[in-house]
């Protein structure tokens, strides 16, 4: 038993430069992939919730775009990311006569496209759940659909979907491990190298397991703290009173008044 933990400690002390590099690439791919996926989700979400144009040509283009997005979402949600990685990476190599995409950008690309498919649904749900009155309030003063989206709707959507986005990020930290099939040097890839060098498979994976857990656990805590911070904006300042125009009254939290 003591020997076992000794082995695990040795793996850490001997291979930490590569474990650190693995952690670095895992976090880089997961973070950039999640953000790029969110952008894909926002773009497709806005496109899909855009009312159909009165112009016939534009309307057909919209329908085609919606069709493409629907296929994209179904295909990338309905197939494993490991398979997508193989198909995209080697597919590109076949199509380009042997050139391969650089590995880290490939990894980011694959995670982005995959996450984008999930985000597309999350964002669409987020937009649909915003009260129609918000759109009308923007339209009635003469804002375009685009202006309403950017300045009124999407800020509210982003705040509402933050927990889902955080969840996707944590999933991506774990799921980057499948990218080792194309040789991306993330954390799991180095686990493979270390286990073959040390012949200590279980010890190696235990170390990797702990590292993954530390990553996901700390990220979850940080994101939850951010969420909480965004929610506690329920205090504001009333400027001026009848007796003193320079007075400031701090109103801290006020229970919401139900309107019915």
């Amino acid at each position, binding site marked *: 038993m003591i020997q076992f933990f000794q082995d695990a400690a040795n793996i850490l002390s001997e291979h930490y430069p590569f474990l650190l590099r693995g952690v670095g690439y895992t976090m880089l791919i997961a973070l950039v992939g999640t953000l790029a996926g969110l952008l894909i989700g926002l773009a497709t979400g806005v496109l899909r919730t855009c009312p159909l144009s009165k112009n016939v040509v534009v309307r057909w283009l919209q329908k085609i775009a919606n069709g493409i997005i629907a296929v994209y979402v179904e295909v990338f949600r309905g197939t494993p990311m490991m398979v997508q990685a193989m198909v995209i990476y080697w597919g590109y190599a076949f199509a380009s006569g042997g050139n391969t995409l650089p590995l880290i950008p490939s990894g980011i690309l694959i995670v982005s496209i995959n996450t984008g498919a999930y985000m597309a649904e999350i964002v669409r749900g987020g937009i649909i759940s915003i009260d129609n009155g918000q759109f009308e309030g*923007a339209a009635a003063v003469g804002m375009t659909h685009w202006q309403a989206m950017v300045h009124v709707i999407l800020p509210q959507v982003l705040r509402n979907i933050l927990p889902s986005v955080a969840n996707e990020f944590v999933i991506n930290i774990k799921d980057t491990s499948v990218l080792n099939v194309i040789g991306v040097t993330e954390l799991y890839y180095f686990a493979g190298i270390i286990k073959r060098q040390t012949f200590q498979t279980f010890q190696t994976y235990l170390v990797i397991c702990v590292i993954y857990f530390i990553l996901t656990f700390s990220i979850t805590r940080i994101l939850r703290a951010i969420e909480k911070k965004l929610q506690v904006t329920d205090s504001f300042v009333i400027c001026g009173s009848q007796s003193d125009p320079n007075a400031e009254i701090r109103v801290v939290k006020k229970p919401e008044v139900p309107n019915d």
Partner: protein
Amino acid sequence: MTENNAVIELKGLCKSFGKVDVLKGIDMQVAKGEVVAIIGSSGSGKSTMLRCINLLETPTTGEILWHGQNVQTEIESLYKYRASVGMVFQQFNLYNNLTVLQNCTLPQIKVLHKSKEEAEKTAKDYLERVGMLPYLNARPAQISGGQKQRVAIARALAMNPEVLLFDEPTSALDPEMVGEVLAVMQQLAQEGMTMLVVTHEMAFARDVSTRVVYMNEGVICEQGSPEEIFGNPQKQATKDFLSRFRNQ
């Protein structure tokens, strides 16, 4: 009243939702400075008519003329048109992500292309008039319904509109908050703002409006001065409607 000084004119306006005909041919003119109270029971088409005017609903047939120009085919820009026809909603529809001040400045900056300073100055002027100046930094979730509606009116006024449309502005309010909103509207009416007000507040219709329109089942049943409609209604439907209110 001739066609030339009509700000808004409706000609044969019809609106159907699927197989349900909500508006069955509305003809109406609104001149500058008029305060038109539109009354009628629920489902009579009052709100739909108002929403057609600024094209939140697309009319099925019929014309809406803005200074004699068809708003669907002849005007320069839908967005400019909407900016000059302010709308106040039953559910306020303040932008939940923005503060009271930002609610009033965003449309000015984005639609009227005003500078931030200019927009804030205008916004503060109107917020002061509706008594909401101290709440500049509050968010919609933090203020009461009556306060929200006053901010919504300030937001509409800050666009410097020619006409204001009110869609049941007090229906979603607790009774004790109705007064503060009506007071603001009354003040606007006295200043000569052209207003179309869909309302269940009969006292407001009687005391403040210059004309009362009674709608029933998608058509204008009867219209006239407040004295005529409330004092001597001609149609049986109007009498029935008003008597129901008196009994309440």
